């Protein structure tokens, strides 16, 4: 990630007229909600409550969440982080394989890329709705194909398979992103190392491990950073496919905030506490991955 400025050292405050407005607007836009969400997480705020019963309750929301009877927070964090790891792994592996295929000398490459852009550009909530129809156990086209080809069908959105279905839609929606970025990376690699490897008689597996992957490493790490955070942020897909159900099976952390604050209950204070925890987790993962990027360079 090229962050180093090539610019001239600013004489005095020459940069301020350009940078200051942008920064002030952004600090306000993001600072206001973050400060309020932190403040609200220390209150007993509920959506429909009379204003005079608003109380400062200190850390009680947090203690209730972390040490209370209801372990839903841990479950929901667990499936979110699990989904993040598994979905990102699938996306990276499938994305790398398809990028390598795309990097071959093939005809109609532009058409293939156009196909890959479809999941990227499509509205995720609408795509999820279409998947919901396709995964329907009785009249869904996925089961139609499964029955025709293999003679069995799957109840996709029940409690056993809900997470699997969400993973599937995730992979469909996000893998082309990885494919296109890694394809661009592969295309930009210099040819000489590959030529000398071929002369030395290296197998394709050796070339992959010792040349391709190390050279792509910075790019892979950036993609990993974006993919994993986006997986934690995921909201549209489970919201449309299962709404967190059946029961709480697919209540990912984003949906957990939604259901606590606006859905099943209207405990805005508590939902704010979950939001603060989520922001902290995202920051931790970002720092971890950025450190990984910097040490390996």
């Amino acid at each position: 990630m090229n962050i180093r400025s090539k610019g001239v050292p600013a004489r005095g405050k020459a940069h301020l007229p350009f940078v200051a407005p942008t920064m002030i607007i952004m600090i306000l836009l993001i600072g206001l909600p973050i400060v309020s969400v932190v403040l609200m997480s220390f209150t007993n705020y509920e959506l429909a409550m009379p204003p005079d019963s608003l109380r400062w309750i200190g850390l009680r929301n947090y203690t209730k969440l972390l040490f209370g009877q209801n372990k839903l927070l841990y479950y929901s964090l667990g499936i979110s982080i699990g989904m993040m790891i598994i979905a990102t792994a699938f996306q990276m592996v499938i994305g790398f394989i398809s990028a390598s295929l795309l990097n071959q000398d093939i005809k109609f490459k532009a058409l293939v890329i156009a196909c890959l852009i479809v999941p990227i550009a499509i509205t995720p909530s609408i795509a999820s709705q279409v998947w919901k129809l396709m995964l329907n156990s009785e009249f869904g086209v996925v089961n139609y194909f499964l029955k025709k080809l293999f003679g069995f069908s799957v109840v996709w959105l029940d409690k056993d398979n809900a997470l699997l279905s969400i993973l599937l839609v995730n992979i469909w929606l996000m893998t082309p992103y990885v494919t296109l970025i890694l394809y661009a990376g592969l295309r930009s690699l210099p040819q000489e190392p590959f030529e000398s490897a071929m002369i030395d008689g290296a197998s394709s597996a050796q070339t992959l491990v010792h040349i391709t992957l190390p050279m792509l490493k910075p790019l892979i790490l950036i993609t990993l950073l974006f993919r994993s955070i986006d997986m934690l942020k995921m909201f549209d897909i489970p919201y449309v496919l299962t709404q967190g159900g059946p029961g709480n099976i697919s209540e990912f952390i984003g949906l957990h905030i939604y259901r606590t604050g606006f859905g099943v209950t209207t405990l805005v204070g508590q939902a704010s506490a979950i939001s603060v925890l989520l922001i902290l987790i995202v920051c931790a993962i970002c720092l971890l991955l950025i450190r990984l990027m910097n040490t390996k360079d």
Partner: protein
Amino acid sequence: MKAISLNSQKKRGVTRRVKRALVYLGVIIISLWAVFPLFWMVIISLKERIYTYDPSVWIFRPVIDNYITVFTEKNLSKFLINSAVVAIFTTILALIIGTIGAYGFSRFKFKYNQAFLFFLLGIRMIPSVAIVIPIFILARFLHVLDTRILLIITYLIFNVPFTVWMMKGFFDEIPKELEEAAMVDGCTRIQTLYKIILPVVQPGLVATSIFCIISSWNEFVYALFLTSIKSVTTPTIVQMFLSIQGVAWGEMCAVGTVSILPVLIFAMIVQKNMIRGLSFGAVKG
């Protein structure tokens, strides 16, 4: 000896042909897999209601009843207009705010240059669902809930950082000599930016704005929380079909087709800059 080498050459020719066949097979599978849901959505939207629940019907007389219904009864045009207004205005604002900032980040070295850029990248990482509750409360307090202006301003949260990172990349590519020459000729920095630099980065501006339009058009979380009746945008239209599932799949698919069409066209236009946009400007592609 010669026979052996000839044999192995032939073998190598065969394996190469097998390999090529496998590559094509893989590419075809990936392409079909990627477009199938879109294809299926269009199919369903054109089917008559009696065939909607029968995936074995592939050949049928297409009807546009579903499209007529969604425009007359479901008021789809209102959703589309809201989406368009929000996407266009937030993009214009983000472009103005972000481009000026990006120019500053690209042209000057100052103390917190990198820290600020990482701060903007950090904003991209914050889950919208984690900050939407305070935005909702603040908006309710200010009586701006369910207005397009609220969405326009809220969408700046992700559009401005994106614009800064993208445009900084495009500014970095312009040789400094170009503007130095202009400044020697007596232009101020503002004049140089306006008269010399912006025309050069015009393709970058177009690409960036198209990406902003696409992500605003598709945005779901803020739209779901912050709108209810007047300013609903198309992604939240799925709401209408969550409760009455099994009834109106054809209409749902018609809505989807109409609302996805503009972004697909836009995305094809920026194909050349797609990788750059996807990676937040990090990869030139």
